[in-house]
């Protein structure tokens, strides 16, 4: 006979009837007014914010029993590598999948508060449009330019030291926590004008994004690919982007990015390295032209 697990048996009894109260800042569509809505779900051990949201969606009733449209959110991998479930949980930016309910209740026992990221336009409820984040990566050409079908042979060797330096930067999952916490990265949400074509609006929006701060994630990726032996072939193009409007100069050294990064990426080191590279590049350009 297997010895009874008293701890497991007694746990549900202690938690029976216990409810988790959740307060969610909802928004029905882009540009609409947001509103708070309260929900309650039965407590289960080892919940995370995603499983709470799943219960809320399944119930589709607010805490006072009113039928409501299910709350929407983004998520994918559920193991903190895809970067899609970023939201403001108890006022702080983090991944919903790795935000454990037991910890959140220790932090704030009455209620869990969920808000969409404040630096990106809301699509609906907790879903935001992070197009600008990915545009930032495009601006700094955060890739290795080998986009053809020729056989270039083996690439240059990368020393273990360089690998160790680069690896943490390569763990970036584009979650946007660094941007959400950055006081220099402010929301850009252009609205489509009456009679404006979709193309014209997309172009205007891209222009607005391209004048805004590129963000810590893009600066760090630019440094990752500028350190790569093949990636560095377009190092100057990345530095050109980093020294154009909304580039590295917009950083205010608040260093929130590195404090909130779920992957503990040394973002401020990348920013300082980008500052140094930009200094050298600007001086070189001044004397070489």
């Amino acid at each position: 006979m297997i010895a009874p697990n008293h701890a497991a048996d007694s746990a549900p009894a202690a938690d029976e009837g216990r409810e988790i109260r959740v307060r969610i800042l909802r928004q029905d569509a882009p540009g609409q007014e947001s509103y708070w809505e309260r929900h309650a779900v039965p407590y289960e051990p080892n919940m995370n914010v995603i499983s709470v949201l799943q219960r809320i969606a399944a119930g589709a009733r607010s805490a006072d029993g009113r039928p409501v449209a299910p709350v929407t959110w983004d998520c994918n991998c559920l193991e903190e590598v895809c970067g899609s479930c970023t939201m403001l949980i108890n006022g702080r930016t983090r991944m919903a999948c790795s935000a454990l309910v037991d910890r959140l209740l220790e932090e704030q026992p009455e209620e869990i508060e969920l808000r969409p990221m404040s630096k990106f336009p809301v699509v609906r409820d907790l879903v935001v449009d992070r197009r600008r984040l990915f545009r930032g990566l495009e601006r700094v050409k955060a890739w290795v330019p080998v986009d053809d079908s020729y056989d270039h042979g083996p690439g240059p060797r990368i020393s273990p030291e360089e690998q160790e330096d680069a690896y943490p930067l390569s763990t970036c999952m584009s979650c946007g926590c660094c941007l959400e916490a950055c006081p220099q990265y402010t929301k850009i949400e252009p609205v489509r004008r009456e009679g404006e074509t979709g193309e014209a609006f997309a172009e205007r929006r891209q222009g607005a994004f391209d004048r805004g701060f590129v963000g810590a994630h893009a600066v760090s990726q630019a440094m990752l690919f500028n350190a790569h032996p093949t990636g560095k072939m377009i190092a100057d193009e990345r530095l050109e982007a980093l020294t154009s409007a909304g580039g590295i100069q917009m950083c205010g050294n608040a260093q929130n990015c590195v404090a909130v990064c779920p992957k503990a990426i040394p973002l401020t080191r990348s920013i300082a390295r980008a500052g140094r590279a930009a200094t050298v590049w600007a001086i070189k350009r001044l004397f070489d032209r």
Partner: protein
Amino acid sequence: MNVSTDESAAASFLGRNQFLIYRLFSLSGLVPVGGFLAVHLLTNASILGGAESFQGRVDLIHSLGALLVPVEIALIFLPILFHATVGFMIIAGGLPNVGSYPYAGNIRYTLQRATGMIAFAFIVWHLIHLHWLGAPVRGNALPGFDPHHASSTLAVAMGSMVMNLLYAIGMLSAVYHFANGLWSLGITWGLWTSPAAMRRANWVSVVVGAVLAAAGLGSLIGVRRVDVEAARAMEGRREEMRRMLEGEVPLPSARMMETAVEPRAVESPRTGT
């Protein structure tokens, strides 16, 4: 229509030159504005060595004569105005969030902006209060500063406790802004890149800030110690000497030597003029 095109032209100029403008902004905080702050506070601190030592430093600065005003405009006023203008633009573009993210770096970021604004307001007040630029504004309502009677006029102008408190707040804001700006500047230009190097640089900034804060607070204490009557007498003697030396220029050098040794001997001819 015209307004919008003008705005976009200005925005595009600022956009194209944003990197250069922000780097010049960063540099101007160190040279010349930060450098001037250091020289100013250390000069002020000489009042701890007595009214005469302070008067000596002031005379040294004013020995630039006619050059003083252009030097002041080019190396002090214009750089401060540039630094403040770009600084206010930067502050307007940011969104402090120290309430949600109360980390040390974020607190420093917020304080940097707060102290920058306090320091600018203080500098405007300081010019009105003590500088010749502010003379038309203050009129006879406030006692000003006379560089030939440095300690005594300063002691009178700084007579009230409120004024001392105001100067302490303004000065400490400027010192914090400079010291923290020094640390920040090193990251901006890429002088210190690793977290360990940033921590070491932080200590350098703390020491620079502490020395300047001590010099600034020391000068406030020094001014309170000044015996106005004794300082006036000392300044009167120096003033006499200065006028005499200026008046001596066309005379032979032998006469100058003589008067320098025995200044009181030529007092009577000068009193008439």
